[in-house]
């Protein structure tokens, strides 16, 4: 079963004419002795939106955070297997984690702008990499805010605190902040779950725009959102050993109209549990 998925995954990525941006091979994640993720094989196609869905606790966030090595921050976390981005293994010894985090950006569930001005929030990343000239930063800040569909709303308030804007705007600010360092992949961990429906739709539209330039991976517990927004969907579930596993991975249209695995069918029709 595992082999079938692995093969079909690579075949499909080729068939879709979208080269794989990232390939996950036999990924397993342990917290101490506890195996949180087991035997995940997956390929993330370039400049498409891939959604990861599944019931609570099935390891979606753990998988997502493996893509930018944020799991390293949890003590006693161990990773087996590999994740390659365009050929390079992200988990090879000696790899520059800071550079990985620049190339693979992240947007979190609750908007978390820094307690600084809007300008300084977006400029934070570039400044880390040594860009200090005002004119350079101005350009980057404007471009990033425009890409995040926020520029028009706050261009007169750049020096106000990042916390003074609405929740939906804060989340777009966080997206702009991530875009400022020009990543290749953007990871989104339930980016709209803390937002009202209109802000949610704005973020979803933004994702469709962003996918022209960036590869996006989104974790969501909102199935309809996954169906609306993504091109490919990965279905995960906990197995008997309480480890998260990849159950099915296919084009979104297939997953939601005629999934192959009964567990996927039960989940998307709401009859799980």
């Amino acid at each position, binding site marked *: 079963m595992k082999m079938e998925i692995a093969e079909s995954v690579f075949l499909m990525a080729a068939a879709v004419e979208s080269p794989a941006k990232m390939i996950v091979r036999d990924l397993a994640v342990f917290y101490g002795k506890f195996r949180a993720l087991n035997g995940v094989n997956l390929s993330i196609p370039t400049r498409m939106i891939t959604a990861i869905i599944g019931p609570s606790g099935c390891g979606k966030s753990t998988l997502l955070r493996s893509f930018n090595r944020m799991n390293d921050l949890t003590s006693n976390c161990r990773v087996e297997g590999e994740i390659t981005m365009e050929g390079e293994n992200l988990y090879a010894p000696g790899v520059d984690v800071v*550079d990985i985090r620049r190339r693979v950006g992240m947007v979190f569930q609750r908007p*978390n702008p820094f307690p*600084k001005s809007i300008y300084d929030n977006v400029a934070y990343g570039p400044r880390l*990499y040594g860009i200090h000239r005002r004119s350079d930063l101005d350009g980057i800040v404007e471009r990033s805010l425009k890409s995040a569909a926020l520029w028009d709303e706050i261009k007169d308030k750049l020096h106000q605190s990042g916390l003074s804007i609405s929740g939906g705007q804060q989340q777009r600010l*966080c997206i702009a*902040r991530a875009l400022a360092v020009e990543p290749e992949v953007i990871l989104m961990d339930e980016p709209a779950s803390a937002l009202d429906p209109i802000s949610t739709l704005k973020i979803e539209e933004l994702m469709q725009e962003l996918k022209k330039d960036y590869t996006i991976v989104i974790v969501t517990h909102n199935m309809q959102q996954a169906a609306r927004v993504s091109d490919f969907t990965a279905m995960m579930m906990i197995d008997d050993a309480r480890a998260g596993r990849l159950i099915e991975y296919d084009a979104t249209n297939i997953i939601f109209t005629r999934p192959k695995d009964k567990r996927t069918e039960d989940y998307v029709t709401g009859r799980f549990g």
Partner: protein
Amino acid sequence: MSTFTELIDRNRIGRARQRKSTNALMLSLTALLTALALVPLFWIIGYVVVRGGKSINLDFFIHLPRPMGMAGGGVLHAIEGTLVVTLLAAVFAIPPGVLAAFYAARFPNTPLGVALRFSTDVLSGVPSIVIGLFTYALMVKTMGHYSGLAGGVALAFLMLPTIIRTTEEMLKLVPSTLREASLGLGAPEWKTSLSVLFPAAANGIITGFLLALARAAGETAPLLLTTLGNERFDLAQIITGGVQAHQSVFQIIGRIINQPLDSLPLTLWKYAQQPYPERIDQSWAVALVLMLLVLTINITARAWIQVRTRRMKG
């Protein structure tokens, strides 16, 4: 069998009335007890204001003490002494305190982190006079004389536990997502702490610092054994004299901190024991000044936080 609604329907009006009267009773009881609790506070403030107020005049603040029998004279030396000694204490206590707190918050389960927290708790329980004695042995004896420097060190020991504990608590309150967001952009740990965590926790850290400062300003025991007292301490004179003699900034500062100092609490203690009524009156005045100083620090702390919070929330 009656339903809940049927059961409570009986005597609805009576119960409502009883609820109202119990409410009123409780409310008045609480108000009474609150007033009772406030009585000592206002009594002390009132007494000090009345008793000390009559000795307050401009002279009090800008003049050094005059011998008994002469009119005028003030406690400038004590005011300046308090300022110098608390400033020194702040300089000595804040850097290690804040850094230690960052370490303890980031690595709570390491041996060093655990030791830090344990030592902080122990230090906060040490009596202030013992700290004074320790500083005496450490500095006064080795230097050969009493000094403001030693006083600053002693007070720093006193301030350290409060600063560490408050800073650590405030850092723990910063949501972990802020830290993750910074790390997710590729920032190293130290930059994250400096540029993101510290500003986010700044409000609380400042409060902690000011509270520690207010406490230090009012401490007597450690200063007894380290600064001794100096009725002829005149900051203005030292500075202008030094400038005229072309001394460097370091030399002037050295002269300031390297001699015995007086301070407000110390002065209060000394004057209150003297047989002269004028001195007794002055000790009440000093009490008033000290109280006002602590009050001002606290109010400033609160005002600062209000302004910062309003600016942050936009």
